[in-house]
């Protein structure tokens, strides 16, 4: 029983990282900006968010810092792309490198080398009276604030894209920016907004890694999840409601792989740890036919 509960709650924790990150990528992608820099944002905001939480003693301020760092990355991405029309993928990769350098540098400068790593303040759990006492269900419900924030973000984005005219317009930009432009939608402004908001979500996911999961920062803490989240965004055909599915799927695989590693003695553990990475590829191979892309994602737009 406890094994199942712990599996569920662990999966939910990692699903939060995956879902928020891929949702952030989707939000950018829906306006045509393919945010490849997610891994860099995760790292930078993990470091920055953790350090802020550690220094201020407040988990909330830590998450806000994470979001702000994400927004800064998003702004740079949107600004350089929209102003100079630099290829989004080149930019994204430079930002990944930038983020990974920045994260370690910040930590080294502020904390330096210590025997015992500093710990982040605890993120409070949301407890629901009565329900939280039932086994298994408690594992599902008794979660921290950020997990609920993730649900909220998914629902809001779904509502936005499919139930509002602004959302319809925003999707139009992703499909055909010219179509949105000629009916008076400010394509540039929407692209900035979407990239910055999306990156803020990725920033929150980044801060979540050290503050809520490991309790402390370590180099390469994101371990490729920023790239796997790109896989999820694609697997989800850039739809928020499917991103959460993908998030849970990948988180589940990650947690199972880790548990198998502990149980199995015969097969070298490295092969279990390879599972999540290999399954990204396998899942994308299987779902190849179902995948849809916003037609303009990754492409620059200019009128002339």
């Amino acid at each position, binding site marked *: 029983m406890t094994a199942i509960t712990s599996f569920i709650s662990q999966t939910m924790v990692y699903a939060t990282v995956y879902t928020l990150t891929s949702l952030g990528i989707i939000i950018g992608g829906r306006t045509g900006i393919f945010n*490849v820099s997610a891994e860099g944002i995760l790292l930078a905001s993990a470091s920055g968010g953790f350090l802020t939480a550690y220094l201020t003693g407040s988990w909330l301020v830590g998450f806000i810092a994470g979001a702000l760092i994400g927004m800064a990355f998003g702004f740079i991405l949107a600004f*350089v792309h929209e102003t*100079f*029309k*630099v*290829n989004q*993928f*080149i*930019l994204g*990769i*430079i930002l990944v*490198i*930038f983020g*990974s*350098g*920045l994260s*370690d*540098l910040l930590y*080294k*400068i502020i904390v330096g080398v210590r025997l015992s790593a500093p710990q982040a303040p605890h993120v409070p759990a949301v407890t629901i009276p009565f329900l939280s006492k039932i086994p298994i269900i408690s594992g599902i419900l008794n979660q921290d604030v950020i997990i609920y924030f993730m649900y909220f973000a998914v629902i809001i984005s779904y509502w936005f894209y499919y139930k509002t005219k602004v959302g319809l317009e925003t999707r139009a930009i992703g499909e055909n920016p010219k179509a949105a432009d000629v009916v008076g939608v400010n394509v540039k402004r929407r692209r900035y907004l979407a990239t910055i908001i999306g990156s803020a979500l990725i920033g929150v996911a980044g801060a979540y890694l050290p503050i809520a999961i490991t309790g402390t920062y370590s180099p390469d803490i994101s*371990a*490729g999840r920023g*790239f*796997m989240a*790109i*896989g999820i965004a*694609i697997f989800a055909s850039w739809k928020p409601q499917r991103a959460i599915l993908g998030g849970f799927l990948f988180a589940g695989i990650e947690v199972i792989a880790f548990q198998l590693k502990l149980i199995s003695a015969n097969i*070298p553990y*490295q*092969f279990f*740890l*390879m599972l999540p*990475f*290999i399954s*990204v*590829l396998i899942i*994308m*191979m299987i779902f*190849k036919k179902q*995948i849809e892309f916003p037609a303009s994602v990754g492409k620059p737009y200019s009128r002339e």
Partner: protein
Amino acid sequence: MKKKNIIQNGLLTKLLRSLSLYGLALLIAFGLISVIIALLGFSVPDALKTLITTSFKSAFGFQETIKKTIPLIFTTYAFTIPFMIKFFNIGAWGQMLFGGTAVAAVGLLIGNFGLPSFIMIPLLVVVGILAGALWGWFAGFLKAKYDINPIISTIMLNFVAVLFVNFIATSPTFKDPLEGHPITRPLPSSAILGFFHKIPYSIIFAILAIIFVYILLKKTKLGYEITSVGYNLHAAQTYGINFQRTIMLTFLLGGALAGLGGALEVMNIHGKLIEGFAKTSGAQYGVFGILTSLVVAGSPTGVPVAAFFMAVLLVGADALQRTMQIPVEMVFLSQALIVLLIVIIRKKFEPNGGK
């Protein structure tokens, strides 16, 4: 007569133009770096001097620079060749690791047979090339057949390769029992490339690679097809060039070169497989290869020079950490910054020159 003049003038102005672009980018970048160094409370002139001159002040500095230039050339090509058709091989790291690991494993397995150097070395070089080629080709295959973006697939394959290195370096068959870290036993001496005045012999392979890539891309049918796909995929396809074959080939070639780079690190620099061998100055060679390639806008001819320039900065970065305790990440970050500025400035002033 007149025609020729136009071309020559064109070339000269182009050269001057791109030199001034690089000058401008470096000026701004070093300005920013100076500000950051000053903010961190270090002496700017000292830091900049160390960063730039360490490579040239001593024989040791220069040898170190060459040692870093060689793998950098390989990983830069690994990125550059697929980038010629506008695809991103972020997997040079994994391909390098896979090449090096295969060499170590095979080398140790056949080490007892007592094969002479002139068989052992070519054999292991081929093993490294094949292993890297396989790892690279797979990403190209996934794109060609399953439309999986190579940015994702190569990263995933990187992680698999990292775990594979760990598996080999910790498995009882290969691990050096005397070492605490995941490190294999040393390769037999017949598998080891030596040094010439402390310059590794692997430099010969780097030079061969430079010549090979140049001839391949500029002179051959295959090179023409790669260039054409890079210019315009649709047109190339319309006129009969097979895209799927081309993308698999570019990733295969890139992977082969990275694999060779990894093999040479194992056979020449370390003499054994060390976990994390494909890293330098705080990050992996794959990432530096991407940055180096972007410095010259993915132009294959510019790779050797750019690789040397980046190696100078890396040697400088190590010296900064040693002598002034400035974290190496500082330089790493600055390199990303320099590249970003170069990319922007190039786009701004030669809208069609940058990719």
